[in-house]
């Protein structure tokens, strides 16, 4: 995300995908939800809105599975803004 904010969008998205791949080896739903949230944010910063929506939806799904109300609400409101 730091890379994305510094304009290194490609590196940011690559790192995001790597983080997601690593997180997918776990069943840590809180982490998975957060990782996909940032993957979505990196995509949004690089104007890839459709990719961002997919990532945000995944994030929402993980947070909802865990019953993580505040994080799910945060992602849901972002999704509402961009769709």
């Amino acid at each position, binding site marked *: *995300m*730091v890379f994305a*904010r*510094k304009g290194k969008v490609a590196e940011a998205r690559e790192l995001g995908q790597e983080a997601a791949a690593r997180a997918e*080896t*776990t*069943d*840590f*739903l*809180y*982490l998975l939800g*957060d990782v996909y949230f940032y993957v979505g944010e990196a995509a949004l910063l690089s104007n890839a809105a459709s990719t961002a929506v997919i990532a945000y939806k995944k994030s929402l799904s993980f947070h909802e*599975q*865990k*019953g*993580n*109300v*505040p*994080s799910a*609400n945060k992602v849901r409101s972002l999704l509402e803004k961009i769709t």
Partner: protein
Amino acid sequence: MDRILESAEGNPLFVEEMLRMMVDGGLLVKAGGRWVPTGDISSLSIPSTIHALLAARLDHLAPEEREALQCGSVVGQVFWWDFVATASPHDNQVVNAQALVRKELIRPEGKLVSGEVTFRFSHILIRDAAYLGIAKAARAELHERFAFWLESKWGKRSEAYEEIVGYHLEQAYRYRRELRPLNDATVMLGVRAAERLYSSGGRALNRSDTPAAIDLLGRATELLSPNHPLYLRSLFDLGSALSDRGELARAAALLEDVVQGAIAARNRALELKASLERESLLLHTDPEGRGQRIIAISNDALPLLEEQEDDSGLALVWFRIGWAKTMWCRYGEATEAMDQALVHAERAGDVRQQGRILLRLAASLDAGPIPAPDVLRRFADLLERAKGDRVCESAVLGEVAQMKALCGRFEEARQLCLQVGGTYHELGMQMAEAQNRADAARIEMLSGDISAAERQLRASLGGLTALGEKTHLSTRAAELAEILYLQGRYGEAEDFTRISEEMGRETM
């Protein structure tokens, strides 16, 4: 009087004791409602210190009075007169007690629950002076006799006095060792003391009184020869207790001694259990490859311990497997391993293990795939099982706080987290306290108070660094990077991502 005041140097006890000694010696009598000297006291010898004065006062007592005080002094500031009567070589104990009370050396303390008559030394320095007046050989004899008296007096209730009995046998052993070369009787005395201290240390571990456990188990090992079967068990438990207190390097060194001792004694089960505990400890300070080694040792240990029907050992191994799984964030598998561990710990009646298994089980449930409302329901059961174990109860409550935050109940979550941190602080559990601050940070992150989250997380990082703990540092550093990022402090955030990456590489 001026000379007395000068020697007293402002210590009222000195003046009191000096006057009492003069009364005891007939140099001062009461006449017409006031104290008057019976002769010329200008050349009276005045001891230079309070200790010398008290020793002189005791020297002037009748032998049976002095010996009665000495017997009492072996017990402590409060003592049972019945023991004095049993141990004293003189048979006129009733007179003695009254005489000693009149001389204000002791005062009646009343009756304890036991119904025995007890007395208290008027001042702890009088007790000390009496104790120092006993020859070492007699001290050893009296300590041993008191231990015997206590055990025979209280029979089945002696478990409550076991630590005290252990202490007196230990003192007897130490004085004997100072006086003559070690012989079989003295070795046996040391073993009797160690057995009681070990047993008391085990109870201290079960009630999470880690400082007491370390003290008791450390003393037990010092009394035993390395060849004695209790020695390695005691050292193993001491290693666990030190690890609980965060003394990781010392604990790892002790556990290595247990591994070597178990190899020499061809005790494969103990060797594997100690290796497992040692590897688990080193996971904190030198994490590389430890997780895999823990699983490998566990796989070797499981069939052996199953064959030996060692439920306590099986609980330990399943616990460590679960722990390794949590290191890799496989919380579903960790939960299953912890559930297995709990079954064996309950079967073994191993209260301490049940406690720490519940603690980790709660953490696995918190992070794992089960939804927060279901986890909260499961926590109600865990809290019921944890009742009476403050550490375990606190750990589960800490996880309850996290689940409540996930459910959006922030104020309840904050209060619980604060309560848990207070308990850890009170119990001296520095590592748990540092982790508790990270839990508080997560609650604040969820609530959206990012600067509060930063404060808590920096406190957690500081605590972990001071303890030399590395396992959780990469996660904490990553969490801090996220917090800094959310505040737009991208440069600082990048620094912490690098730290996290570096620490994480070591852990995998």
